């Protein structure tokens, strides 16, 4: 499966879910084109539910959706096939046939967990605080923005603050590299293993410098050799280890 950073990540998850549901229904295999189309339809269904719920909530001067909005959106999506009681405009939503069908489905069908482990992206530090209002964060609105009410979400960090944070992280990485070129000879904590040069320090998965490993110092120099085979003068560079 793709990594979380891949734009097709969510489509891949939807494809796996749809194939699992097809397997539970009784299918043994599925054509790839049919599976792609089916998962696309499933994604559009989810998006349609969300859009209808949001529109219903907004039409009632609310920002948060509730069960009534959800039932209305499910009934709207079921209107192409029709449902019992749809002609009654004063029908109680909590007694909707669509909701009752979902209850019956939940009672009959056993839950099938998702087949694979979903990799999560790295948690962003400001993901939660960015949606909280000034009042919730206990912060005051900047004086220059006194017209902004306190119940609105906080301003996001400016790009300058983000750049400063990235600079601080970059400085930690740069301190790892050592200056090595001195007087035509190279000094450094290099250790040669076969054809590979192994660094004398290591990193953790978050690219933070771990404790430097102590290694024997190796000095080597570059020299020019004008002697060559076949009587032809050539200048060759050799790397000699002392």
């Amino acid at each position: 499966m793709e990594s979380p950073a891949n734009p097709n990540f969510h489509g891949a998850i939807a494809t796996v879910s749809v194939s699992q549901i097809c397997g539970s229904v009784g299918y043994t295999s599925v054509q790839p084109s049919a599976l792609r189309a089916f998962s696309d339809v499933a994604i559009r269904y989810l998006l349609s539910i969300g859009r209808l719920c949001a529109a219903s909530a907004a039409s009632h001067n609310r920002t948060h959706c509730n069960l009534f909005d959800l039932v209305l959106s499910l009934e709207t999506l079921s209107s192409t096939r029709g449902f019992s009681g749809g002609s009654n405009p004063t029908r109680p939503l909590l007694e909707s046939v669509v909701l009752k069908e979902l209850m019956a489905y939940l009672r009959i069908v056993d839950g099938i967990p998702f087949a694979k482990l979903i990799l999560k992206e790295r948690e962003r530090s400001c993901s939660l605080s960015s949606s909280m209002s000034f009042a919730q964060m206990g912060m005051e609105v900047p004086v220059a923005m006194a017209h902004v009410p306190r119940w609105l979400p906080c301003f996001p960090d400016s790009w300058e603050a983000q750049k400063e944070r990235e600079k601080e992280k970059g400085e930690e990485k740069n301190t790892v590299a050592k200056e090595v070129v001195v007087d035509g000879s190279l000094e450094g904590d290099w250790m040669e293993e076969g054809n590979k040069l192994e660094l004398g320090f290591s990193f953790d998965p978050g690219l933070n410098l771990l404790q430097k490993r102590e290694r024997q110092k190796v000095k080597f120099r570059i020299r020019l050799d004008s002697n060559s085979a076949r009587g032809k003068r050539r200048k060759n560079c050799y790397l000699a280890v002392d």
Partner: protein
Amino acid sequence: MMSGSGNSSGAASTAGADGRHDDDAALTEFLSSLMDYTPTIPDELVEHYLGRSGFNCPDLRLTRLVAVAAQKFISDIASDALQHSKARVAAPIKDNKSKQPKDKRLVLTMEDLSKALREYGVNLKHPEYFADSPLTGTDPPTREE
């Protein structure tokens, strides 16, 4: 009479209130049972697409309900497509009646899927083949011209 009618209306209202209480209890039980149910569509995926479309609700039960609704929708379509494929397989073979189909595997094809989706208002058309040139599939005299 008045008292009788009053009593009957009172009884009716009591019965109605009891009925509503039962419905509310069933709904409350249903919403609480959602947390014990594991839908095939993960909550993270549902939250991602709902968030993209503007759905904003902190209650996880509603997210689960959307996941169950989507799972039921896909399951219904898959069941309809399965009925179409079984009907196609069960149709009598005109060419050779002695041979029986060896492979009884059920495969979801675009043909069955498009037939099932048509009932839900989704028009799915699949091109039969891809042509590498505009003259592919035409008669040879037309090609020579």
